[in-house]
């Protein structure tokens, strides 16, 4: 608890300093009404005191809560660690659809590492989302790990990091990993013009992660971290994209598209202009791309006529763009430099299993 208070105090001190700075009358924004920012990101990841011992082990201090997602976003086969830090004894609030509601000063931590050929976990970057109490808006920051793996340093401009990693089948792959710049972060995390967390939605948290051994949402209820959760057995669950024992091909494919595409491909997201909306709950065949002509894909469509041709993945733009790493063609546009073979196979199988239908 003591360590936790230290973290909280540190974060609060950060806000305080910023208020002070603002009082000196240093204009940071121009033309809008109250857009003062309260939170200032610290220079190094270690400055926050989130982890104890060797920081690269990511052993959380108390108050730093590990969590996992049933279906995660694919990011070049990286190994991800996720944590939530709630300030004081504040609580999250349950939301049935969309991300949970978080109290001010919440910090969400996501660490990205890869497994090298010696089977060691090598840290690349840590991303923070902080809900700023000054304006109740989420802010993003990226921390790039040093070569010595002793700390990560604030980094806004993005980076290209050459890595050689083992994929899910333990096959070594070389790539230039793209650390996003802060605007890249905003592209996926913006809904209706406001920055939002993407992962921590009730339905994607509602399962029993191996590290916990019991239902994660129920655990949070028991620990008084969250209010408003109905009987967990009644809460919707997003299928696990890779669990063919418990979920159908259709369920797994739709969960995969939801997590990997629908943060942009939704009416409130960055790809609103495309008319292609891939949320798990989406029912409209046109919105799902079924025999839908692309809008502004240009050459990215590979000369194909439809986003999705039932029964024919080879002629479906969706599968084509997932199978590319070319800028301007590759989808998702960001955070992927290698092809997710297992993800592509899932979507190809799903499309090919649909009853054949052709246009006209």
């Amino acid at each position, binding site marked *: 608890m003591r360590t936790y208070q230290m973290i909280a105090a540190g974060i609060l001190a950060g806000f305080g300093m910023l*208020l002070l700075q603002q009082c000196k009358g240093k204009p940071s924004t121009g033309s809008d009404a109250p857009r003062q920012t309260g939170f200032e990101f610290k220079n190094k990841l270690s400055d926050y005191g989130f982890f104890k011992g060797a920081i690269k082990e990511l052993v959380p201090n108390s108050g730093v809560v590990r969590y996992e997602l049933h279906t995660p976003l694919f990011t070049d086969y990286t190994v991800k660690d996720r944590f939530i830090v709630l300030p004081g004894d504040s609580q999250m609030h349950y939301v049935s659809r969309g991300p949970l509601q978080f109290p001010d000063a919440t910090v969400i931590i996501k660490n990205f590492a890869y497994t090298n050929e010696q089977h060691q976990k090598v840290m690349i970057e840590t991303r923070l989302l902080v809900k700023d109490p000054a304006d109740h808006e989420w802010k993003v920051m990226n921390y790039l790990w040093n070569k010595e793996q002793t700390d990560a340093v604030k980094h806004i401009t993005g980076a290209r990091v050459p890595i050689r990693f083992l994929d899910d089948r333990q096959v070594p792959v070389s790539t230039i990993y793209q650390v996003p710049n802060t605007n890249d972060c905003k592209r996926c995390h913006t809904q209706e013009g406001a920055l939002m967390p993407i992962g921590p939605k009730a339905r994607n948290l509602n399962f029993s992660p191996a590290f916990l051994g019991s239902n994660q949402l129920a655990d949070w209820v028991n620990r008084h971290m969250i209010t408003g959760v109905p009987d967990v057995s009644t809460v919707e669950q997003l299928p696990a994209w890779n669990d063919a024992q418990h979920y159908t091909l259709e369920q797994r494919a739709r969960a995969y598209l939801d997590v990997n595409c629908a943060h942009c491909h939704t009416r409130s997201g960055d790809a609103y202009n495309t008319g292609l909306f891939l949320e798990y709950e989406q029912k409209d065949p046109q919105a799902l791309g079924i025999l839908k002509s692309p809008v502004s894909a240009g050459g990215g469509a590979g000369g194909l006529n439809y986003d999705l041709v039932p029964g024919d993945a080879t002629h479906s733009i969706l599968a084509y763009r997932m199978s590319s790493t070319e800028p301007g063609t590759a989808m998702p546009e960001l955070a992927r430099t290698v092809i997710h073979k297992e993800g592509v196979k899932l979507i190809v199988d799903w499309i090919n299993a649909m009853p054949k239908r052709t246009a006209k």
Partner: protein
Amino acid sequence: MNRIFKNNWYGLCILVLAVLVSCNGNTEKETQEAYIHELTFKPGEEARVLEALLTIRDSTSILLKAGLYKFDNLSIVKAKQVQLKGEGRDKTILDFSAQSQGGEGIRITDVTGFSISDMTIRDSRGDLLKINKSRDIVVRELNAIWKTSDSTSGGYAIYPVLCKKILVENCYAEGASDAGIYIGQSDSAVVRHCKAAKNVAGCEIENTTNAEVYNNEFYDNTAGFLVFDLPGLSQRGGHVKAYDNYLHDNNRINFAKAGSFGTSWGVGNAAPGSGIIILATSNVELYRNRVINNNSSAITIASGFAVGETPDKINDQYFPVSKHIRIYENTLEMGPAFPGPAALHHIGKLLMGIEQQLNQQDPGRKNKRIPLIMYDGISTNLLTKGTAANPDSICIAQAGDNLFVNADFLNIEKPALWKPSTDMAAFICK
């Protein structure tokens, strides 16, 4: 507590200032506005430019001194009053050939009051300049260019989408594998004094309302100027005026990327040799344009049904039949023969077939060219089972001969029934 109050007072002062600024500021006067933050960079400082854009504050003007800059990609997200300025179209050059990810060279999202001017941007892998969900946009004195005009080029050179109040003027777009200047799903746009050449489409207005396109020159593209509505998008287009433009010699091969099906959507449908194409949209006026030597069709009016859309796509955001089209006082001329690439294109072949059919039907035509204005003839009669000759208010007031053909597209694949007609009585403006 005191501090917080002070803070709020400060915010209030800014608010007052903002009101003052917005009272005398509009897109026409934007250059006279003062910016609170002014930054200047020179070639070699690319990393600093990138950082400046990532940490952009409201009311910032950035000057890029003359010279060559090499970028992977640039972006600005969520800001107000941002100006990006060079020292001249031939002096400040931004090269994006090193683009390694993302869909475009420059990406502007959720900015109110954005202007970019006086520079060349070139050779991105995806689109060159995409402006998404923004308003009060000025793109001026900008060259947006790919050095090769083929399917390896990005789709759009200048590409505002889901925007409000856009001015594109004195720009030049070249080499786009879709459209050089493309305004999509926007409201209130002006494109004027621009040129576009060697693109598939010179300029395209798509699902956009209240657009004016005037005093432009679009030439040596596959098609000069398009007004399209596509289904399944955020809004219908319409209320588009194009006048005093010079659209000539658009006879280039359609180099939009074609796969095993051949592209039959969007700009892939533009036949080489097209001056203006109106597709599935409404309330369009074309007047005082010079449409010269676009040798497949000076003006095409078509319905979404002609390119494979189906009635189930009709909703509040889409209606496939072009309606309320007024065409008057244009200068329309066509060369003596179809351009070579027309024979390689699915719509080009149909246009060639129409010319042939008319001349077969009527030897009195003495092998004239296809008429200058090609109307596909697919009207709302198809949906209403009506029989009116011109139910969709197509109105033409043009002097001259061999002006019009109703191409009877519905029967084009049924030789026994197909009767394209040059009778334009019902289509002359009342």
